[in-house]
């Protein structure tokens, strides 16, 4: 064995070294020059049907299609929170007072990647196909339940009518954040297929964006995009010249593998790496950067925030004092340090604290929070939370140069959060008869044990997993018998939707208010999305209002908002009123903004969006990526 082994070893080693040298030199593994290729980690890992590119059915949306392949009528400027026209020519003209009829013009001079022009015929065809095959397609519900009728006026003008009044027409017919509901299909490619459209794979797609698909991995790990020669004639060619000639989306695997690959400069932008891994990576490779060089290091301007949702329809979560007691028994400072290295921005309102939302909601509501009083005159809001956090971080050994000072503390860590006061929590609970038993845990008034089930994500969302784990521990230390359950993605979903299963969870979907148009998220707080407290049947699944808001006052306010233009001051005011009720009753417990722990590598490309160069959010899977692609520069290596 040994003699044979040594004979084999030398040539084998030589071969492998040679191959790896080629791979790591000037060319990427897919045969493109590294200096012209931007490599990003895919948002959703690996896909199992990569050849499916027909947007009428489920497909790997986050493989670059949303940013590079499709184009939309109106896009979202993530830096300001305002929509801007992409393929549309200006904003839609509202044709009636009810806001149901609109006239939309598109820009002439937009061409598909095969040279055909994009006209209203494509739009009409897309809408009609969706309606015609609505019971065989899985991806069209969004717009077949939105549009009533449509009519072509000329090649570049279309008039549509919506089923209900739509004050947010621009974001529903265009983009709000994640993507558009409607992906425009090339009529000249799809129409000849007739009924085959339903199962058509479309795996050599004709696209509107400035990139086309050069190659993709049949095993679903990567996809390579190449810039079109005629990028100015593409759907968003008017934004500027996309700098990378090639963009490779690849799944580099688990965080262990990704961190190693990132340090080796194998790719340029990651998605959601844990904070401590990023710090360790930076220590090994100074080309790795976070959004900001000081705390909290990462961009905190995601549209959504994280919070704890309660099942307000069942015992004991329908007891207001219990919810407040949970808020006051959570040591968020300690939890944030354990789970996130202290790199978080707390918010007590159900809206994330961003430069867009702060002037609308957080700043005007400071007095409300400071003055908020509970039953016995206790003021639960702690506006020194941010200061204390900075002190604790210093005590833990964080370099003071990286910590903010003065006004920077509020910018970095928000206005404050609830006090950590388990003693007060105990008083609150005692007022409704809940006291600690012999085992140190709280019991219901009749002596039965109070067991709270808290479902939080498993490996599929690492940071929430850590947060949930630490939160459960924090509550247990305060006397609550919290049973933490780590659940897979599917079960997390099912759990949230089923009244009979759901108790407490940590999620984000009720806190996605990006700008003054709060209806885009809270329109789901209506009686239509309230089910009986014991519903388990298949056709009684909840599809909205997961916070189980059942307060009539909120329903009324939400309805009022339906009749007001989204940019009117009354709209923001209604939003504030809703939040006041939610906070007073503690219907949900907001925690923090979603930390976008997205590190970048400046070895091959620079100019990524950063705190001091904030032209877009740092996501590679949103509208922001279009701006990034247009703004970055190659380093020439």
């Amino acid at each position: 064995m040994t003699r044979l082994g040594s004979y084999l070893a030398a040539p084998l080693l030589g071969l492998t070294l040679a191959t790896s040298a080629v791979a790591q030199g000037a060319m990427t593994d897919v045969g493109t020059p590294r200096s012209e290729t931007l490599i990003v980690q895919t948002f959703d890992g690996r896909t199992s049907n990569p050849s499916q590119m027909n947007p009428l059915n489920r497909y790997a949306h986050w493989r670059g299609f949303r940013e590079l392949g499709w184009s939309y009528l109106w896009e979202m400027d993530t830096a300001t929170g305002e929509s801007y026209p992409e393929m549309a020519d200006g904003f839609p003209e509202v044709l009636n007072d009810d806001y149901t009829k609109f006239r939309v013009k598109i820009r002439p001079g937009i061409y598909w990647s095969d040279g055909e022009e994009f006209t209203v015929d494509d739009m009409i065809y897309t809408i009609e196909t969706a309606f015609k095959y609505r019971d065989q397609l899985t991806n069209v519900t969004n717009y077949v339940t939105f549009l009533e009728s449509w009519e072509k006026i000329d090649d570049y003008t279309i008039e549509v009518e919506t089923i209900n009044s739509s004050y947010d027409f621009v974001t529903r017919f265009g983009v709000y954040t994640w993507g558009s509901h409607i992906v425009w299909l090339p009529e000249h490619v799809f129409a000849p297929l007739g009924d085959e459209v339903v199962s058509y794979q479309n795996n050599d797609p004709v696209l509107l964006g400035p990139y086309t698909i050069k190659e993709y991995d049949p095993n679903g790990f990567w996809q390579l995009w190449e810039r079109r020669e005629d990028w100015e004639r593409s759907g968003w060619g008017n934004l500027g010249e996309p700098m990378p000639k090639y963009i490779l989306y690849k799944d580099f695997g688990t965080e262990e593998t990704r961190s190693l690959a990132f340090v080796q400069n194998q790719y340029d932008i990651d998605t959601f790496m844990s904070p401590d891994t990023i710090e360790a990576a930076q220590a090994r490779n100074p080309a790795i950067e976070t959004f900001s060089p000081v705390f909290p290091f990462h961009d905190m301007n995601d549209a959504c925030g994280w919070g704890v949702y309660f099942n307000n329809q069942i015992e004991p979560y329908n007891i207001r004092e219990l919810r407040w007691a949970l808020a006051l028994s959570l040591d968020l400072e300690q939890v944030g340090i354990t789970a996130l290295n202290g790199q978080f921005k707390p918010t007590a309102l159900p809206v994330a604290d961003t430069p867009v939302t702060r002037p609308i909601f957080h700043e005007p509501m400071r007095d409300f929070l400071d003055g908020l009083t509970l039953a016995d005159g206790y003021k639960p809001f702690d506006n020194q939370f941010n200061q204390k956090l900075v002190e604790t971080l210093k005590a833990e050994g964080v370099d003071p140069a990286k910590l903010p000072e003065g006004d920077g503390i509020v910018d970095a860590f928000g206005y404050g959060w609830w006090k950590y006061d388990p003693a007060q929590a105990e008083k609150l609970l005692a007022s409704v008869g809940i006291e600690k038993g012999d085992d140190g845990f709280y019991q219901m008034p009749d002596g039965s044990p109070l067991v709270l089930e808290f479902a939080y994500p498993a490996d599929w969302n690492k940071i929430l997993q850590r947060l949930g784990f630490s939160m459960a521990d924090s509550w247990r230390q305060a006397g609550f018998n919290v049973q933490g359950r780590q659940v897979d993605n599917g079960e997390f979903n099912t759990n949230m939707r089923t009244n009979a299963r759901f108790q407490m969870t940590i999620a984000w979907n009720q806190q996605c208010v990006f700008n003054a148009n709060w209806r885009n998220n809270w329109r789901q707080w209506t009686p239509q999305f309230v089910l009986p407290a014991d519903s388990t049947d298949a056709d009684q699944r909840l599809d909205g209002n997961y916070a189980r808001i059942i307060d009539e006052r909120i329903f009324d306010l939400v309805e009022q908002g339906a009749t007001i233009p989204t940019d009117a001051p009354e709209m923001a005011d209604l939003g504030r009123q809703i939040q006041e009720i939610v906070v007073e009753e503690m219907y949900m417990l907001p925690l923090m903004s979603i930390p976008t722990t997205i590190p970048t590598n400046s070895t091959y490309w620079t100019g990524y969006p950063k705190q001091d160069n904030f032209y877009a959010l740092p996501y590679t899977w949103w509208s922001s990526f279009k701006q990034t692609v247009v703004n970055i520069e190659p380093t020439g290596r």
Partner: protein
Amino acid sequence: MANVTETSPPAVAPVAAEEGPKRTTDLMWLLNPRLAIGLTILLIMGVGSFVLPLFAPADPSLQGTYIRNLPPSMEHLLGTNALGQDIFWFLVYAIRNSLSLGVVVAIGVSIIATTVGLSAGYIGGGYERFVMLITDTVITIPLLPILIILGALIRGNTSFFAVGIIIIIFGWAWDARTVRSMALSLREREFINMARFSGANTPQIILREIFPYVTAYILVGFINVILYAINTEAALAVIGLSKIEVPTLGSIIFWALNYNALFTGHYLWLVAPIVAAVTLFIGLFLTSTGFNAAFATKRGVQ
């Protein structure tokens, strides 16, 4: 049962069957250096993990008790981890829990596998076919996907005890098959025939002639199943399919991996449970092969 996938069920060398059953009052023949070392290790770890917790300064599973990621010192023998827990004390509790689980599972598997295997092998006929049908079905169903599916149930609503039950359910089939084949070959041996001709009935034969043979195997198998249980629980925990709030060797590794301890340089957190697991295994293995060797000596073969 060698299995290149990540969890291996237990298997052990069949003890060579020789002359008549053992009779012993004097246990000195048991001792040999291998066995002595093995038992010592087991004793230290076993007693230590049950006695030491009485002196623990705080409940080691509480988070944020200490400052995170401290290096080893007099106060924290192995330092602290990213959750603010003392690594040494957590490890002590973990060893205790893992060992307890291992012993419980070993008892369960041994009882079931021996009963099923012996009776099937010896009695034969329709009874054996039926039993083997069940056994084979259990073996055939692939373990990992079932565990993944059950994982959702484990994580959700069950206790740590249930993890043990599940490991038992999937562990007994292998051993039963092996015991059965041993019983099969034993059945044809001379001394069995002699016993049968002397008028002994089936249960007597099983108990007095066959059973002592398999005792050696059972003892060794028992120890191996402890190991299998600990390993499987650790493997499950690493994938995240066990109850990871309970301190076990597996959950330490799970959280150490989750916080990327290897990459961020917090090696002790990850290395300590592995060293503990390896030591435990060495102890169990030496004990197991020590017994094996002792029985062989007793039989006068070496």
